[in-house]
């Protein structure tokens, strides 16, 4: 697989102190990579750097092996879909889509057929004569997407394009974007603060925090093996226990695991709620003994599964996801023994 986009040591500092430093990233041809992080983490800065909308303090951007660092946006083989205000309200949909093609000097007949093809691709066939104000928010974003697709960019940049839409529409648009990506084989860089969006859409996710990259990996890996404590906290739900290293073992809450990462001193032990097992302690059973016990505080039914909060004294509240069958055995106030199917340990920050 060939590298379509390479970002090397990208650094940009704003007067406010925010910005990014030392960003290294490679995106393969036909790949959809998401930049994920909270607002102010620098993800949009990286995207705007790739698009040519800001001048980096240091670093290089290569597209198809050629440096574009010094090129203005109109000379770069990229196209950006913005969060909002994408379309030009004084132009019809046709003129919006044809604008870039006219600049490139494409013959009129070709423009007409290209525009109608692009509109069909985004499921808005025949809306050439409409004006942006006559379209809904979702339709406007589709037109914006069509406009970018028409330019056949080497890299398509998307800056939270669906965040202004309602949840249902956002979901549909994600699926459509994924379809379009499979059909066109375009290389895409997608910025979002919505982890669900990132997990469902991406080939790989770049998790960003305070202007640097925390982890780059496939969605499943990001979820299963968060590389840093930050990623563990940021992606999905996670329980944390205070632990300590004792030679080859990590001990926390009366349980112990092998010290695979060779950590030292105090550690944080992270457990996904779906990896937490609960067994009810019956009255005549011995309450003492090895392991972690607690009392069920609350049971929340969430459709096909339930979230059970267990009050585990000094270890705080532990959340466990239970199947709807398993949860029928449980009642609020029950004493339970907790078991962990798998854990990840992190050095204390």
């Amino acid at each position, binding site marked *: 697989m060939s590298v379509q986009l390479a970002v090397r040591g990208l650094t940009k500092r704003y007067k406010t102190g925010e910005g990014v430093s030392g960003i290294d990233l490679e995106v393969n041809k036909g790949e959809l990579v998401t930049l994920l992080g909270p607002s102010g983490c620098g993800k949009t800065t990286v995207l705007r750097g790739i698009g040519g909308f800001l001048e980096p303090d240091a670093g290089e951007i290569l597209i198809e092996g050629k440096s574009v660092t010094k090129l203005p*946006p*109109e000379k770069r083989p990229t196209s950006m879909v*913005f969060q909002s205000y994408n379309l030009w309200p*004084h132009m019809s949909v046709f003129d919006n889509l044809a604008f*870039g093609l006219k600049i490139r000097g494409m013959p009129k007949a070709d423009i007409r057929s290209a525009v109608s093809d692009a509109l069909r691709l985004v499921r808005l066939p025949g809306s050439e004569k409409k004006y942006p104000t006559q379209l809904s928010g979702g339709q406007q974003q589709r037109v914006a997407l069509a406009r970018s697709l028409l330019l056949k960019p080497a890299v398509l940049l998307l800056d939270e394009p669906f965040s202004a839409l309602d949840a249902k529409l956002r979901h549909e648009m994600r699926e459509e974007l994924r379809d379009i990506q499979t059909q066109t084989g375009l290389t895409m860089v997608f910025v979002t603060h919505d982890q669900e969006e990132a997990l469902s859409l991406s080939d790989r996710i770049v998790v960003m925090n305070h202007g640097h990259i925390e982890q780059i990996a496939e969605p499943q890996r990001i979820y299963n093996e968060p590389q840093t404590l930050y990623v563990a906290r940021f992606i999905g739900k996670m329980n944390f226990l205070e632990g300590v290293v004792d030679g080859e073992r990590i001990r926390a809450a009366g349980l112990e695991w092998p010290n695979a990462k060779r950590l030292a001193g105090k550690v944080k032990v992270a457990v996904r709620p779906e990896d937490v097992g609960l067994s009810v302690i019956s009255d005549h059973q011995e309450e003492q003994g090895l392991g972690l016990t607690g009392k069920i505080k609350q049971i929340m039914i969430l459709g096909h599964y339930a979230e059970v909060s267990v009050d585990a004294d000094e270890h705080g509240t532990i959340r466990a996801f239970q199947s709807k069958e398993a949860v029928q055995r449980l009642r609020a106030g029950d004493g339970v023994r907790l078991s962990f199917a798998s854990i990840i340990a992190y050095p204390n920050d």
Partner: protein
Amino acid sequence: MSLVGWYFKAIGKRRIIEFILLTVFAVFFAGPLLNLVVLAFSGQWAYPDRLPHQWSFKWWSFVMGQDDVAKSIGLSFLIATIVTALSIVLCVPAAYAFARIRFPFKRVFLFSFLLTHAFPKMGLYVSIAVLFYKVGLMNTMLGVVLVHMINVLMFMTWIPTAAFRNIQAAQEESARDAGATPFRVFRSITLPMAMPGIMVASVFTFLNSLDEAQGTFLVGIPDIKTMPIIMYSIIADFPSSAGAVFSIILTAPTIILLLAAQRLISADVMASGFQVK
């Protein structure tokens, strides 16, 4: 119940009050205009008759027959056109700068345009006249044009500034992205999108210049006699019917232009011009 009583009850108190208010408004607004029109076409009209004794076009032919009048109409439109064109050239780039570029004391500069409207006009014109006298601009067309421009500087900068401000960065950046150079972006995206605001300001400028009398009188006399100046002398020297005819001539372009621009003049465009951000 009497028929009138039933009628009032059926329509309702609120509608009746609305109707009365509307009538009062219409009388206040249209009454003087109606009187003006009647006056302009009257041959003989003596108090206490409600309507003229005799209808006639004689004051129209009289006013049109005056050499000064035909000349002043041409001159007024010429000056208004020059003032509008020069104001666009001067103020639209300034408005773009106010909307897009960060520079120190921006708000102070923007606010300073209000100054020319803060003082009594006559005082301002007298001091301008003193200055113009020194540099030889008295009794010249350029002098009159400059005085007119001072009047419209505020509208001509504030309204387009708001129009440019309302254009989002993403709209311009999308165009850059599509391959347009910065100049092309300005021509194809920014300027057309700001056009309603610029048009509104221009119509204002044109009408304001057509209507300006005080400054023109002070700076332009004796040679530069625009329509309002001529009107003063006609009102002073001839019966009021002549003044009425002239008023209608002076009002006509205003009404025509406003009707033409009606599509563009929305309360939004106007109001957004007066928000100092």
